């Protein structure tokens, strides 16, 4: 065996420079043969290994040194290149930086959205209880469910209620309304809320306890230690502070200021009822299969609730899905996550395409350099590495720009997205590493096409100047521009359509009047004094109507089972209902289509019903006045039918609604319609009137339409965000177009000069140059329109009530894109057209 052992050769092979491998390995085989011949097999092997061991260091250092010098060489070239074409390089970098900044911002947002509720240690095993019936799914469950589940099913490790109510809390002279969460004893075991003071284990040992968040504690106690101090709630209940928890992080779907014991507030008997009033959460063991457990507990309500032949099924909804997925149906908010991620990708793509276009368009300038390099023995892979290195380098510079941009844009973005996102590269190592990788990725992707493009030139043809930037290439480049503009146009269409929809929703006639109506949220103390306050308010001529109800007209959500004459007794129907006071319909200017509204002239109205037209349709009554109707076993007659109005958001159809007047049920929302003039005085009057009857009650009346605006906040934000990103996308596309046109014009400068000499006008030269690009933009429109139509109509389907998708939008988008493109192009073409022909031709 005269050849060295394969393994050792293989090791050596990898330490050697590629070019030298063959020769050195060959040399060594020769020597090995000699050694083997003279000293035998074993000695030869030992010698070989010895050589390898001792040579590793020099070879390795050589390799590194060589790589570094290659790198610095390329770096010098790249820098020199950038200096010579500063304009183009800057445009390139700017485009990339903007694209990257967008991606980073969206990434921060998406990351936050996806992180909701993950901070709970047991998040994977926590579930929300859902109750499903014929008419939908709710997150309200019966109080009795929690103890029952714990009793009957060992699979349910822990369970707790969670219901937030507004609570008036007072300590010494400070009193505020707090969001108090009524929870079970096991709540703190299930959810991770770190205690800053106090011990979670003993927090609810005594039921008369309250746990505060840090913010809440600061409100009442400042920097004093709150433990052991007593807070009075609702002027009736004294609770001792047993703990303070860290402020709740922004990515939690549960929000509250205090924790109190549900049993203390609701009472032990109530917790055995089966009326649906509160949310419940359960903890499953780690290995449990939720589907399995769900099947087991599914019929619990049916089993225990003997009141009605109700068919409610209990379900489990994972904690981690709560924020982004809707229990009821309707749009899952996770859709927004997808949409924004898609936008980020699109914007980045446009930026990369820009980069590719600009880089390859300048090919004629670099051809000479490449040709020489290839002739001198540069192989194709080296060339590719060089170009990739350049683009990665540019990407890093762009990254710096992007980071700066993000710092500037973050506050605006935060207010747009209603979040408090942080971007701290100095503290966050993973973020920094991620950014670096991101830059490398972008550099590689954006540089891939130019690298391949440049390295495929053939040196001899290049140097002989017979090379032409072939039409094949420009075909691809044109495709890229078309793609950019298609994406931009799509974004314009989407934004405009969504805006129209939002406008439509905001201004749509809801079927009732919402102007100049003040809403007062009434808590327990206030409710008792309703009649007195109503009387006093009406004494003022500026107050037109005062009424109250259990819910605000656009949020009629509670429902109950109903019966009517002739209803199929086997079917089971629930309808939304609202408890209203006299004058409700007058206050909102709701018209009756049949019958009358509730009136004091008819004392039996306390047991009568008013339904809306949709309900009337459901009952099938042709003449409903006087017919029997009942809800919850309370029989009565229908005295009026009100014209349909939107009882829930415009996402849904108009549902059947029933109106009753249970005087025993307190009205939690008061409505005060005031005259349009002297609004400030009227509001003042309202506040004073209430303060006179219930001193110390923090009254904050709000106008009804402000309240409504808040319902559609999400859509409004979506619109704003889309506008910003559309603007960005267009800007980047124009950047690309700008650079490209400049280059094209420069390349054709001789042709232009000749044309001018032959008598062409400025205008015709501009026309010729622009023609190519205009065609591309038109093409982009043709592609974008059907796509936009498809996507927008699918989105609109989520709304039961929506505007038509108007063609005007598409045409406007197309014209806008065209106009912008023309503007961009015209600057360069104008310059080209007005250049002195003599200058151009002189270079011959």
């Amino acid at each position, binding site marked *: 065996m005269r050849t060295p052992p394969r393994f050792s050769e293989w090791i050596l092979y990898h330490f050697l*420079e590629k070019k030298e491998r063959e*020769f050195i*390995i060959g040399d*060594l085989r*020769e020597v090995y043969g000699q050694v083997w011949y003279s000293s035998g097999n074993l000695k030869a092997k030992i010698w070989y290994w010895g050589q390898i061991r001792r040579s590793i260091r020099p070879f390795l250092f050589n390799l590194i040194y060589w790589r570094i010098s290659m790198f610095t060489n390329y770096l010098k070239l790249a820098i020199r290149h950038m200096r010579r074409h500063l304009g183009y390089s800057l445009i390139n970098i700017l485009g990339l930086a903007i694209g990257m900044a967008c991606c980073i911002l969206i990434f921060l947002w998406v990351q936050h959205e996806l992180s909701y509720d993950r901070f709970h240690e047991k998040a994977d095993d926590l579930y929300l209880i859902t109750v499903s019936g014929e008419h939908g799914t709710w997150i309200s469950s019966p109080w009795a469910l929690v103890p029952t589940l714990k009793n009957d099913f060992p699979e349910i490790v822990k369970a707790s209620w969670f219901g937030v109510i507004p609570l008036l809390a007072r300590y010494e002279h400070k009193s505020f309304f707090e969001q108090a969460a009524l929870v079970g004893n096991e709540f703190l075991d299930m959810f991770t809320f770190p205690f800053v003071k106090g011990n979670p284990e003993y927090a609810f040992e005594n039921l008369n306890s309250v746990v505060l968040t840090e913010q809440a504690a600061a409100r009442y106690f400042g920097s004093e230690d709150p433990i052991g101090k007593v807070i009075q709630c609702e002027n009736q209940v004294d609770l001792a502070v047993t703990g303070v928890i860290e402020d709740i992080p922004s990515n939690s779907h549960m929000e509250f200021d205090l924790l109190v014991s549900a049993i203390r507030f609701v009472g032990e008997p109530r917790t055995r009822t089966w009326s649906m009033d509160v949310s419940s959460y359960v903890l499953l063991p780690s290995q449990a299969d939720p589907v399995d457990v769900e099947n087991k507990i599914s019929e619990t309500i049916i089993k225990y609730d003997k009141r009605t032949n109700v068919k409610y099924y209990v379900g489990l909804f994972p904690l981690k899905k709560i924020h982004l997925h809707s229990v009821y149906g309707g749009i899952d908010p996770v859709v927004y996550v997808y949409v924004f991620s898609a936008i980020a990708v699109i914007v980045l793509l446009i930026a990369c395409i820009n980069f590719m276009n600009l880089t390859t368009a300048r090919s004629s300038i670099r051809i000479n350099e490449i040709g020489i390099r290839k002739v001198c023995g540069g192989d194709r892979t080296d060339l590719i590495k060089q170009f990739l290195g350049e683009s990665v380098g540019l990407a890093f510079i762009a990254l710096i720009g992007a980071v700066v941009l993000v710092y500037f844009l973050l506050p605006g973005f935060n207010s747009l997205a209603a979040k408090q996102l942080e971007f701290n590269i100095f503290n966050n190592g993973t973020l920094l590493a991620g950014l670096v990788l991101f830059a490398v990725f972008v550099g590689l992707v954006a540089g891939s096409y130019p690298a391949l493009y440049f390295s495929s030139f053939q040196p001899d043809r290049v140097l002989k100047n017979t090379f032409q930037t072939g039409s094949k290439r420009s075909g691809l480049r044109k495709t890229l521009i078309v793609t950019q503009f298609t994406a931009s146009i799509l974004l314009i269409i989407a934004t405009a359509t969504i805006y129209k929809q939002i406008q439509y929703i905001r201004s749509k006639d809801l079927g009732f009047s919402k102007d100049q109506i003040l809403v007062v949220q009434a808590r327990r103390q206030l409710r008792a004094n309703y009649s007195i306050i109503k009387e006093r308010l009406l004494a003022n001529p500026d107050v037109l109507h005062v009424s109250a109800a259990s819910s605000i007209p656009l949020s009629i959500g509670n429902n109950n089972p109903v019966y009517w004459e002739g209803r199929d007794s086997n079917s089971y129907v629930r309808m939304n209902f609202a408890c209203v006071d006299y004058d409700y319909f007058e206050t909102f200017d709701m018209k009756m289509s049949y019958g009358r509204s509730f009136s004091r002239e008819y004392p039996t109205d306390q047991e009568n019903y008013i339904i809306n037209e949709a309900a009337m349709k459901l009952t099938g009554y042709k003449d409903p006045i006087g017919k029997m109707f009942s809800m919850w076993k309370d029989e009565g007659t229908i005295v009026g039918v009100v014209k349909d109005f939107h009882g829930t958001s415009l996402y849904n159809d108009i549902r059947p609604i029933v109106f009753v007047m249970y005087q025993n049920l307190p009205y939690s929302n008061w409505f005060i319609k005031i005259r349009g003039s002297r609004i400030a005085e009227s509001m003042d009057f309202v506040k004073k009137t209430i303060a006179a009857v219930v001193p110390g009650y923090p009254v904050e009346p709000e106008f009804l339409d402000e309240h409504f605006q808040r319902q559609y906040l999400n859509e409004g934000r979506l619109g704003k965000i889309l506008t910003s990103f559309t603007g960005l996308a267009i800007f980047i596309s124009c950047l690309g177009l700008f650079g490209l046109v400049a280059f094209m014009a420069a390349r054709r400068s001789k042709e232009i000069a000749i044309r001018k000499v032959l008598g062409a006008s400025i205008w015709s030269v501009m026309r010729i140059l622009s023609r190519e690009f205009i065609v591309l933009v038109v093409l982009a429109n043709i592609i974008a329109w059907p796509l936009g139509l498809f996507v927008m109509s699918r989105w609109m389907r989520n709304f039961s009530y929506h505007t038509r998708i108007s063609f005007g939008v598409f045409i406007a988008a197309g014209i806008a894109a065209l106009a912008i493109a023309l503007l961009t192009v015209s600057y360069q073409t104008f310059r080209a057209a007005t250049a002195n022909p003599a200058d151009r031709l002189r270079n011959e």
Partner: protein
Amino acid sequence: MKILSKPEELILLAVFSLKDNAYGVTIRKHIIDKTGVDWTIGAVYVPLNRLARDGYLETTIGEPTPERGGKRKKFYSLTQRGMKALAYTKRINDSMWSRLSAMDLAALTDKG
């Protein structure tokens, strides 16, 4: 003018001596014979390569032979630049060594 490092100087001299037969194996053997030190392959090939890359040596590629497992040989020869570097080295050497006479050195080696 670059001052050659000792290995570089020795390699260039070896290449010169070996005339047409200067390749890795022979160069190394020559140096080992002349210096009495067992130079590792790394100690020879790394400076050799660098010299070639920097233009002090030029290379010719030879025929593959069976004893080398079918691999080709790379022959080295001095370029103008290489010759100039050697001349420069000699000049420096001569001028710096001129003080040290043969007698001084002989005296040292006897005692040491």
